[in-house]
């Protein structure tokens, strides 16, 4: 009996939490089908009284939405791929090798995770402007190629790979690059999933740096593009809702697909201390 009560309580609590989590999304998506007048009226109803597809239809014509979307996907995928690779290889060297200065380097990498963006952004800004890289995608890629977080996770992940496997490969005559690329890297699927999702998300929603660096409208990223809905004189709420609704879709899809691996990867990486 006690089991059943507990079970139902848990379920109810989870459902409540779920509703609270999802309500803003539901409201946002429903509102994306309302006109701006209806969104701002004193009398509100959840379901649109005069549903319209205009917000979605106007997205492309008013804001070149698809272009921002594509740009963001491009940069996010590129950076994620690079960070996954560098995190794995650094994690391998720091995790599996023993050499003088290893702990020092790892310590410094960890400490750099603590440095707030507000400290590095001013000098980086000056550096990139002087180097003439303003408005170039290089400015979005170069500063983020290595991630302390990623290195940390992968180093932990590497602990889970038996040293015997690696020693055996060495005895077989394989060199380190082969060992890493053909043996170790494929074994890290879980860790890679974890880093990939975190990194992708982080690039996907990064606002300030792309905002400062990118000038040309056709190179702009989505997170910055969304702020265009907030014009000087009025805010196009309906458009903003429609754009947001669409921009969450790919990430949710990716997440749903990779969920199990992602959680296992996080477990292997972040959780073992």
């Amino acid at each position, binding site marked *: 009996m006690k089991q059943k009560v507990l079970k139902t309580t848990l379920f109810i609590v989870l459902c409540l939490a779920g509703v609270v989590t999802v309500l803003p999304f539901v409201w946002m998506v429903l509102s994306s089908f309302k006109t701006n007048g209806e969104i701002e009226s004193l009398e509100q109803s959840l379901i649109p009284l005069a549903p319209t597809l205009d917000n979605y239809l106007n997205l492309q014509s008013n804001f070149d939405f698809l272009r921002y979307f594509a740009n963001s996907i491009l940069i996010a995928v590129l950076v994620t791929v690079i960070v996954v690779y560098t995190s794995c290889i650094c994690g391998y060297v720091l995790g599996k090798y023993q050499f003088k200065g290893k702990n020092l380097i790892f310590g410094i990498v960890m400490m750099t995770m603590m440095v707030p963006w507000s400290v590095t952004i001013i000098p980086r800004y000056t550096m990139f402007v002087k180097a003439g890289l303003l408005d170039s995608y290089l400015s979005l890629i170069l500063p983020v190629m290595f991630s302390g977080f990623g290195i940390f996770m992968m180093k932990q992940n590497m602990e889970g790979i038996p040293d015997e496997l690696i020693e055996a490969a060495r005895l077989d005559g394989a060199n380190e690059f082969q060992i890493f690329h053909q043996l170790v890297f494929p074994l890290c699927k879980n860790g890679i999933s974890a880093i990939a999702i975190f990194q992708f998300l982080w690039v996907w929603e990064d606002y300030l740096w792309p905002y400062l660096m990118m000038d040309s409208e056709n190179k702009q990223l989505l997170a910055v593009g969304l702020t265009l809905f907030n014009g*000087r004189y*009025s805010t196009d709420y309906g458009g903003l809702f429609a754009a947001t609704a669409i921009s969450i879709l790919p990430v949710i899809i990716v997440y749903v697909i990779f969920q199990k691996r992602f959680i296992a990867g996080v477990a292997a990486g972040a959780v073992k201390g």
Partner: protein
Amino acid sequence: MIVILTCSLTACAGSGDNNAGKETGTKDTEADKGLPVMGDQITYDPNHLVNDGNPITIDWWVWASEEMFRSIADAYEEIHPNVAINIINNPWDGYFTKLPLSLQKGEEGPTLFNIHNSYENLLMNYIEPYDIDTKEFIADYPSAASHVKDGKIYYADYGMSTGMVYYNKKLWKEAGLTEEDIPVTWEEFIEIAKKLTKFDEDGKMTRAGFNYNNYFHAIALGLNYQFGENMFSEDGRVSQVDGVGMKKAVSLLTDLFEKYHVGDKDFGTDCEQSFYQEQSAMVFVWGFFVNNLKTNYPDLEYGTFEIPTPEHDTPYAYYRYNGEATPGINKNASAAQKEVGQDFMRFFFANDEIQIMLSREGGLIPAKEALMESEELKDTPIVRTVGPHIDRYIWPGAMPSTLENNMKIAGEDILYNGKAPDKALKNAAGIIDVDLANTDFTASENLYQYYEK
């Protein structure tokens, strides 16, 4: 595989469309276009080749009204088909964060850029003076006199903007009001506003008679003139934001909400939006409102009247005005780009059609004085409402943004954080004066016809 794919995608995207400075496009070979010379004192003869007729592209940065500026660019491109003008729209919020850096880029940056005079100090280092005779300039555009630096004009105004009270005609009729009820004094105004305010059974406000949320600071700055006090000291270097005049102005505004309840600080947090939604019957906003209404809410019937005053007699000044600044030319652009920029600006100043359109669309009083009498402009809301008294509006000068920013904070502190007005204003004055001391701003109040210390 993925790597190859992404690399090729980067290559595609990387070869961006930034054409500034590049030479693609049509070549112009017809110097004589058979077009008439335009302009009065400043003249523009379109019958010449720009950049020797070679194709050239320039960028023009704006923060709003892209279509309006596009039409001006199109008119120029029609005369000079070898010139391509790229309009780049950067939203206001970050416009002045990004502009100075882009200007440093020289040839790859904008050649033309819209200016707001409250950011003059950030931009002065980058502006090239106009290649137009100063005397001719002032003859056509009298307000340019206040922009002369070392005998040259770096930027001027194309129109004057100021505030008016906009009222919703439908809601007026509903309250039984007519044209004759248009108020002249604040007392009359309050009576009208009360009639337009609505509450529901629980005493909650459902319609504001007058709303100034998000605009408090913009109104307060300038309202002080009605109480006989200037915004700046005699030497024009120190603000008087904590002076008697401003205190009275602030007190008047807060009383409207807290004493007379014609509006509420928590109702309609953005007065312009609130007016669009017909949840506020009257708002006091500046010129551009006309364009917004026309573009976004063309069915809203509205009227305008002048800002009320304390008494029936003429006040020291009604309020302040500000000039809508003309585009500046980038000092760091290439010689060819600058040539095009200068030619374009002369066209801009000489062409009456363009000036009329700018004033009409922007709800402005034209800076080219002669145009105030023109058919198209003499009946626009602002010319009709404010025109007759325009000599009683003061231009404080190119007030740096610190004044608006800190008055906004003071206003919010007074209304929302319950801070004592005297303290809030003193605080604001302190910060403003430190910031002013770091610029070389000097107020232009002494240019006012009826200036008194």
